[in-house]
């Protein structure tokens, strides 16, 4: 392996890892607040891609307007799902709300199959993102290059928000103790909606970054990345944002290097083995809370 090929693999791995990290944060935050694994998150990621196709292909809007529409529409979808499918079950046993999440996941997949057919649709290309750039012998597209940078930026901003703002403090309080924080006057529904807004915003951003270099969208496209990001969140310690980010990068890099070594059939296998190993030896993940929650 030459050094330029090695760097190229690293870049590809970090880039896909960054996208996994963005989606994994959505899983980990919702879990932190609601103790719910939002199985529909991967499908929200898929719907964001269809929103983009609508905006740019069907309505022929310019890319900067389209990106805005995708972000807003995805956030609205996420909040509506929370209101309709999760909020009425807030006092129900945790298993019910999780089953509801699985139901929403299937609903979105089948709705997309019904509305857009199962045939893959082309994802519109955003001019400047798909341009090729060459840096020191490595050739790549702009989007691959900016993905990890955007990921780090978003994680930094999110940490600032959680640690230094009032709503962030409320979120930390809710994740510590749901009922007590309610008694202390925290508007819990607002906090939960806000969590979904952030999660869906990151999923929509991830969707744009993911589909620009991989321009094929079909109704089940969100399920495998969704599962991998869930594993990334578990690996980093579900509930922990830096953990989810680290998990995303680890999975992205290991996947790429396994494919590079010529064992592409084992790249997904490795990800799932990682999940089993983590659950066996460190169930709380790398940065997880000490108390294990039964799911």
């Amino acid at each position, binding site marked *: 392996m030459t050094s330029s090929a090695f760097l190229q693999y690293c870049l590809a791995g970090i880039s896909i890892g960054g996208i996994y990290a963005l989606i994994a944060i959505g899983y980990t935050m919702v879990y932190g607040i609601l103790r719910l694994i939002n199985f529909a998150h991967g499908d929200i990621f898929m719907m964001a891609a269809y929103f983009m196709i609508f905006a740019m292909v069907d309505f022929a809007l310019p890319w900067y307007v389209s990106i805005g529409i995708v972000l807003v529409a995805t956030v609205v979808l996420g909040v509506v799902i929370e209101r309709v499918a999760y909020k009425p079950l807030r006092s129900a046993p945790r298993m019910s709300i999780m089953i509801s999440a699985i139901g929403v996941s299937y609903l979105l997949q089948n709705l997309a199959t019904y509305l857009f057919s199962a045939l893959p649709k*082309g994802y519109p290309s955003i001019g400047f993102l798909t341009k090729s750039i060459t840096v020191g012998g490595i050739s790549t597209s702009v989007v691959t290059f900016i993905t990890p940078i955007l990921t780090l930026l978003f994680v930094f901003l999110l940490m600032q928000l959680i640690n230094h703002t009032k709503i962030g403090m409320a979120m930390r309080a809710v994740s510590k103790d749901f009922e007590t924080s309610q008694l202390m006057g925290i508007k819990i529904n607002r906090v939960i909606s806000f969590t979904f807004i952030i999660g869906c915003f990151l999923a929509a951003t991830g969707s744009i970054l993911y589909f620009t270099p991989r321009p094929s969208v079909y109704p089940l496209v969100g399920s495998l990345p969704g599962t991998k990001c869930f594993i990334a969140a578990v690996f980093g310690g579900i509930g922990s944002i830096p953990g989810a980010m680290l998990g995303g990068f680890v999975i992205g890099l290991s996947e790429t290097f396994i494919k590079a070594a010529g064992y592409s059939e084992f790249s997904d296998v490795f990800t799932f083995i990682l999940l089993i190993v983590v659950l066996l030896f460190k169930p709380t993940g790398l940065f997880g809370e000490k108390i294990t929650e039964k799911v």
Partner: protein
Amino acid sequence: MKKFIALALASVMTFSLAACGGGGSDEAAVAGTPISGDTIKIGVFEPTTGENGGGGMQEVLGIRYANTVAPTVDINGTTYNIELVEVDNQSDKTAAVTAAQSLISSGVVGVLGSYGSGVSIAAGQTYAEAGVPAIGCSCTNPQVTLGNDFYFRTCFLDPFQGTVMASYAAEEMGYKTAAIISQNGDDYSTGIAAYFKQAFESLGGTIVADETYQTNESDFNAILTTVKASAAECVFIPCSIATATLILPQAQAVGLDAHILGSDTWENESIVMAAGSAAEGVVFSTFFDENDESTPMAKDFVNGFKAYLNEDPQRVTLNGGTDGVAAVSALGYDAYMTMVAALASLDGVEGDLTSVNLRDALAAVNHDGVTGNITFDETGDANKDSAYLKKVEGGKFVFVKKQLDETAQ
């Protein structure tokens, strides 16, 4: 309530009568379907909906056009009208068997189709048991005709295609090194790739990277980086349309300079539309080219078929919105004409003619088709020795050359 029961009983009896009718034709099945009356029914077994609906429809159009060119056939002094019986196999293996059974019960003596090997393999047994011969048009998987005496086909096979691409790469372009990217576990992809590898190596070339990917893979960065690092002069990628649209932009992004070669599935406008400039220069093999004027028959077919399409705007829509001649339409036309040639060769055969006689006639047929001369080997595959190579240039498919298979023969 009584009325309802009476109605139910009546309908049950009607159904059992219908079943008797079906049973009658089953008995005749051992001996095939007889040719009688003054009409010969030919089944058209194609997908017009589902995954392969678009391509299947183009094949049907070729068959319909052929029917307008040769609507009758003379056997033993009788002029028979040829009637097409069309069914939709929905690109689905289960629906295919039902569709095949409905064709048999409607009394067809021969079947044309299908686009897509999977449905043809699924329905093959139904035709064999009924003793009705079928001619596949564009199903390239070896399994379609293997072990089935009643299935023939007019196109070349996957192994042939891989070999043709290898001779193009090694001899025409003079490449010494090649890389292969194929889909793990997919018969079509791995089959062609294996034959490409074998032929390329026997022509003195070296395969410097042999990469595989998983079904539904969307990230080819790692594989393409490996191919780039291997410094291969060309990379052969037999894959589905969906995969091709994903690989091309990623190959451009990682700065892959190797010449990209594809397989027959790549002859699809959507690849060029989705990949844009990344598709430029790609060369792939296909069955037919409308601009090939080396045979007068092909030229007549192209002109006639274009006129047929333009007669009715509906036909242009069904053809995908253009009056371009797809290779599968030509194969459909050839399959029909081969069937007619076999029927005509029954002239002079004594006794009551059945579909089994038609099968024997097909096995011995020699027909000059628009996609080349058609004779069938003992497994029922057309003996074809040439494929058409096309290149993407300026967003269009441009004919490169007719490539003869120099290693297999």
